[in-house]
Every structure is written in C-alpha cells, then in structure tokens.
C-alpha cells in the first residue's frame, strides 16, 4: 500500500534533481555564450563565426560540431587555456595561461561550445 507512493516520491525527487541539474547546465551554457561573445572577456567572435553572434572575424575556423570533433571536453579546455601548446604559431590568445579567463569561465565556455 505504501510502496507505490514511495516509488512515486523517489521518481519525483529524481525528476526534480534532474531538472535542477538541467537548469544549472543551461545557465552554464548561457553564461558561456555571454563570456564567449563579451568583447572584454572571450571576444571569440573577433576570430570565429559562432551561431548567434554578429560581425564575426575570419581568422579562425567557424566553431561548430565541436562535440563530434572533440568528444572529450578536456581537449576544448586545453585549446582555450593555451592553444600555442598545440600550435606554437597560432594567433589564438592563451586565455587560461595569460589569465584572460578563469578556469570557471573557461568551463562555462566549453559547456557552450558543446552545444554548437
């Protein structure tokens, strides 16, 4: 008699927490987009076309399908942290190494990049 409601409660709790996690992820994505577009922060549009951004530059490739290309988020983090490690000639600024962005900010941007 009590089993059913308990199960319901568990399900409900699960659903709620999933919802909260979802909302948290969504807000990280939104933060990441803001940071990526902000001229004083990532300013990624200076060099990359990105869905939803105006007046992109053409120095870097369009940022899209990144989840396919870099399934491991650590790869994206590394590119933003310091792309000169992969390509010493790159024009891309070392956002982490030179403290243009914090680790938390980079993580939010990676969340956003994974939606592209």
């Amino acid at each position, binding site marked *: 008699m009590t089993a059913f409601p308990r199960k319901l409660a568990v399900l409900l709790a699960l659903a709620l927490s999933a919802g909260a996690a979802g909302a948290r992820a969504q807000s990280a994505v939104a933060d990441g987009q803001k940071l990526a577009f902000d001229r004083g922060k990532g300013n990624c549009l200076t060099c990359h076309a990105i869905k939803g951004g105006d*007046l992109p530059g053409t*120095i870097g490739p369009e940022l899209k399908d990144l989840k396919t290309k870099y399934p491991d988020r650590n790869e994206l983090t590394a590119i933003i942290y310091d792309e000169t490690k992969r390509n010493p*000639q790159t*024009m891309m*600024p*070392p956002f982490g190494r030179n*403290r*243009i962005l914090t680790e938390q900010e980079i993580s939010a941007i990676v969340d956003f990049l994974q939606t592209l």
Partner: protein
Amino acid sequence: MKTRTSLLLGSLSAALVAFALTSPRVVAADKVDPVADAKAFQNFFFQKFPDVKHEDFVNGPYSMNADLKRQWQEKEEFPPYEFALDAGKEMFSTPFKNGKTYADCFPNGGIGIRQNYPYFDEKDGKVVTLELALNRCREANGEPPYSYVKDEMASLTAYMAFTSRGKPMDIKIPDDPRALEAFENGKRYFYTRRGQLNFSCASCHVQSPGERIRAEILAPALGILNAMPIYRSEWSGMGTTSRRFVTCNSQTRAVPLEPQSDEYRDVEYYLSYVANGLPISGPGARP
C-alpha cells in the same frame, strides 16, 4: 596553389620561430642581411597573393578585398583627407616667426622626399622619421613641437606624402653597424609577441592579412607605411604612423610605447626598408 602557399607560410613561420628562439647574442653574431630580408619579405606577399598587383599592396586593406576597393575608389572622388592636405600645404608655406620655413630644413625644399624617410642619421646614430624631422625643424626655429599623433603633424605629413605620390620607397641602410642594429631591432620588435593577448605585429599583418578581425580587414605588412598618414572614420580624423602604432598596441592590450620612441622608430625603419620599390600612396583614407 593552396598547398604551396601554406607550405610557404609554414616555412616563413618556421623561420620566424627560429628567429624568435635565437638568443640576442646569436642574432648579433649572425650576419644581418637586409637585402635578402627585403627580398624574402616581398616574395612572401607576392606569392601569397598572386592576384594583387605589386604596386597595390600599398593600399592596405583595399588591396585585399574587391568590394572594399570599389567603395574606396568612389570615396577618392571626394577624399576625406582633403582638408588635411589643404591645411598642410598652407602650414608648409607659412614662415615661422623667425622668417624661415619648413622648406629650409629639408632636402629639395621638402617636396617629393617622403620616400626617403625614415633615414639613419649617422651623427646621431639613430633613425629619424619624417615626423621627428618636422618637430626638430620647428624646435630649431624656436617653435613648439606638435603632437606626434594627429592634427597639425598629420596635415604636414599628408602634404609631404602627396608631393611624393608614386615615387618608390627608397630607404637606405648606410654601412654602419648601428644602422644594421636599428634594422634588426625593428625586425625583432615586429615579430615579438607581447601583451596579454600574445600577439606580435606579424600575427596580424603577416599571418592574417586579408582576414577579418571582427569587421576590419587586416592590411598586409608589405607597404603598410606607404599610405601614411591616413584618415580613419573611426578616428573621425587623420592619424600619423605614430598614432597607428599606438592604436595597434593598445587595442591588443599591449602597453603602447611613446610615439617616436627608439623602438617605434626602428620598426618604421624596418617596415619602410622592406617596402623599398613600392610607391608612396599617402595620404590614405580608410573605412
């Protein structure tokens, strides 16, 4: 074609890295060869942009983009630098309080000589730019110097450039170790990465000319000073070479130097020398 250019870029980049990694001591020991440098520099751009006429490189972003070039050619009917040109001509012919004029300070009365600046002054042991020579002329005649970045200085250099239009850049490096050192120092400054964003001048003007950085099309480093001074809508006015250097440094979050500091003078010497043979096109107008 594509692979060829990227190979070229690759080898130039490799050369640049090698250059950046060499310690100053080794650089000093290496033979500095400006003639070979200029040749390699020009060939790099000629091969990277085979469709651009050689004399067109002096038109900055317009040489890289046909649409932009069309808009510019229309604008040239009523060039926005005209007011500066008129003012400069007037200033140039107006005597100082002591009765002398600018013409007294320059070879050939200052007409048609822009292509010879900057030059290396063997007495001073330093590079002298046109802007610097103009202020020295004023001070020698008891007049206060002008700001290096705009207004009067831009008007004067606009007029002097105009009287030299079409003349090939003709910078000399005298047989003096200090002149070679100035050239080398300018080259080093040009290729060294700096500031929080880690750019060198070459990142933008050698690696990426023709690309858009946001909405702006990057000018090629070849002939990049031949059009100076320039009118820029963004400035709503004229700017000198000094102004452009300071702007490029500060826009990339690097600490700009004082206008006419030794390093800026050396960069100007380097960039002008490697543009030898390309025509003076100043004053210029930019979007």
